[in-house]
C-alpha cells in the first residue's frame, strides 16, 4: 500500500539512517540552524575522524565558527544530533581554545592557577594537580614564569597557557577557534609546533577553525571546506604529510599542491 502514497518530504538524517564511517569520533547528523529566519545549516551531516586534526575553512559568513560552537555546545542547534563516540556532549570531556586569549584567561589567577583551575574544580588532589601541570609544562617546554599573571605575559605566552589549560583535563576533543589570528608570525610558528607535539603526545582529536589558508592546511589531516550558506560540505581534502611538520613543509610540493587545491575549491565556492 505504501507505494501508492505520495512520498513524505525527506526526514533529516540520524545516526540510524546514516551510520558513521569507521574510526569516526564525532558524528553530526541532521543538524539545522537558522539565524533570523534564514537557514545557515539544513540537515547537515559530518563525521570527524578520531585522533586527527580537521581544519574548517570556507567563505565568509558560511558559519565555520558556528558549526564548531554547535559541536562544542556553545551555540544550541535548532535540530540535529551530535555524538562523541555515541555519547552526548555532557558525557564528554572537551577543551576549547578561544581566539581572544586575553578574554579567555582568568586575570585574577596566575598562569599556573589558570592551568590548574579545571583540574581543581574536577576534584583532583593537589599533588595530582601539581604533577599534571608539571607534565604540561614539560610538554610545552615552558621557560617563562607561570607564577605571573596573564596580563604580565606576551600574547603568545598567554595563548600557550590557554592551550595548556584546555589540554589539562585530557579532553577527548580539542576545539580551536582561530588560535593564531591574534599572534605574530613567530608566535604562530611556535604554537603550531606546540600543538603538533601535544597532538602526538595525547592523540587528541582536534578541530581548528581558521581564516588563514596556510594555517588551515599546515596542521590538518583533513581540510573541511564549506560552501556559502545554506552551508554544505564542499569537499574534504586529505593532507597526509608525516608529523611533526617543520616550517619547511610550507615549501614541500605536497603542501603546495594541497594548498593550491584548497584555494581552488575555496574560490569556486566563493564565486558560486
Amino acid at each position, binding site marked *: 500500500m505504501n507505494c501508492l502514497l505520495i512520498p513524505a518530504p525527506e526526514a533529516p538524517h540520524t545516526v540510524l539512517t546514516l551510520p558513521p564511517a569507521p574510526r569516526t569520533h564525532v558524528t553530526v547528523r541532521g543538524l539545522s540552524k537558522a539565524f533570523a529566519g534564514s537557514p545557515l545549516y539544513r540537515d547537515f551531516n559530518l563525521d570527524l575522524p578520531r585522533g586527527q586534526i580537521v581544519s574548517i575553512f570556507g567563505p565568509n559568513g558560511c558559519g565555520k565558527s558556528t558549526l564548531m560552537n554547535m559541536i562544542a*555546545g*556553545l551555540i544550541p542547534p535548532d535540530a540535529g544530533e551530535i555524538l562523541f563516540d555515541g555519547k552526548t556532549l555532557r558525557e564528554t*570531556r572537551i577543551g*576549547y581554545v578561544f581566539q581572544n586569549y586575553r578574554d579567555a584567561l*582568568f586575570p585574577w589567577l596566575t598562569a599556573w592557577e589558570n592551568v590548574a583551575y*579545571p583540574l581543581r*574544580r574536577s576534584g583532583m588532589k593537589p599533588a595530582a594537580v601539581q604533577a599534571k601541570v608539571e607534565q604540561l609544562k614539560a610538554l610545552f617546554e615552558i621557560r617563562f614564569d607561570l607564577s605571573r599573571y596573564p*596580563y604580565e605575559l606576551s600574547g603568545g605566552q598567554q595563548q600557550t597557557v590557554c592551550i595548556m589549560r584546555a589540554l589539562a583535563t585530557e579532553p577527548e576533543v580539542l576545539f580551536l577557534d582561530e588560535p593564531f589570528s591574534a599572534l605574530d608570525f613567530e608566535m604562530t610558528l611556535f604554537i603550531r609546533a606546540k600543538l603538533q607535539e601535544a597532538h602526538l603526545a595525547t592523540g587528541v582529536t582536534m578541530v581548528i577553525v581558521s581564516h588563514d589558508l596556510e594555517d588551515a592546511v599546515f596542521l590538518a589531516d583533513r581540510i573541511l571546506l564549506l560552501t556559502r550558506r545554506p552551508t554544505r560540505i564542499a569537499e574534504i581534502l586529505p593532507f597526509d604529510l608525516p608529523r611533526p611538520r617543520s616550517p619547511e613543509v610550507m615549501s614541500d610540493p605536497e603542501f603546495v599542491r594541497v594548498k593550491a587545491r584548497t584555494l581552488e575549491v575555496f574560490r569556486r565556492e566563493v564565486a558560486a
Partner: protein
Amino acid sequence: MLAALRTVVAERRWLPLIGPLLLLGLWQLMISAHWVKPVLLPPPGETLGHLWGTLVSGAIWPDLQSTVWRTLASFAIAVVVGVPLGVALGSAEGAYRSVEFLIDFFRSTPSSALIPLFLLIFGITDINKIAIASFGAALIVLFNSAYGVMNAKKTRVMAAQIMGVSRWHVFKDVLLMESLAQTFVGLRSAVSMALVIVIVAEMFIGSETGLGHRIIDSQQVFNVKDMYASILVTGALGYVLNLAFLLAEKRLIHWSGKA
C-alpha cells in the same frame, strides 16, 4: 647628564605640591590686597595654626570621630545590602531591567532632597543620618555591582562552562570575580557619597556632634577660623577615604584595567 636627569626626576616628585602652594599664595594675596575682609577669610597661616591647635588640643576629635563613625556605618550597611542585591540583580538581567528605572530615578534624586522624608520616618536621631547616607550609598554600590556582573566577559564565562564546571562555580569563580573591578568603583564612589550626606545631615538634622555640625555652628557664631579649619579637616577626611579605597583596589583588584 645623569645628574641633570636625576634633578628632573627629583623635581617631578614635588610637582603635586605646586597646586596647593599656589592656592595658599592666592589666599594670602586676597587678604594682603584687601580683596576680602579678614573677618570673612582669615589668613592661611592663622587658619592652619588654628587647625593645628584644634588637632593638638583634641577639640576637633569628637566631631571627627562621630563623622567617621557615621560615614563608615552607613557605608557598611550600603555594602551589606548593595553588593548581594546588585550581584543577584545582575545575574538575572530581566530582574535588573524591571527595577532599573527605580534605581536610576533614586540615584538621580539628590539624597539631601529626601532628608525631610527621612525625618518623618526616623525623627531627629543618629539613626536618621546613617539611614539616609546608607540609602544613597547603597544605590551606588548596587548598580555598580549589577553592571559588573552583567558586563562580565562572555568568553570567560564560556571558558568555565566548557570545562564542565558547575553553575554555582561559574557564578562564584567567574561572574563574581569579574564584577569585583566595577564593584570597587562603586565602593569608592559610595564612601564619598556617604560622607557628603552625613555632613549635610549633621548640618540640618539637629546634631550635637560631627564635622558638619561644627562647620555650621562656627559659621553661626562667626568663628570663621574654626569654620575653615573644619572644612579643611572634612576635605582631608574625604581625600583620605578615597585614597584608602584606591590603594586597596590596586592591591586587591590587581588586574583592573589590564585584562
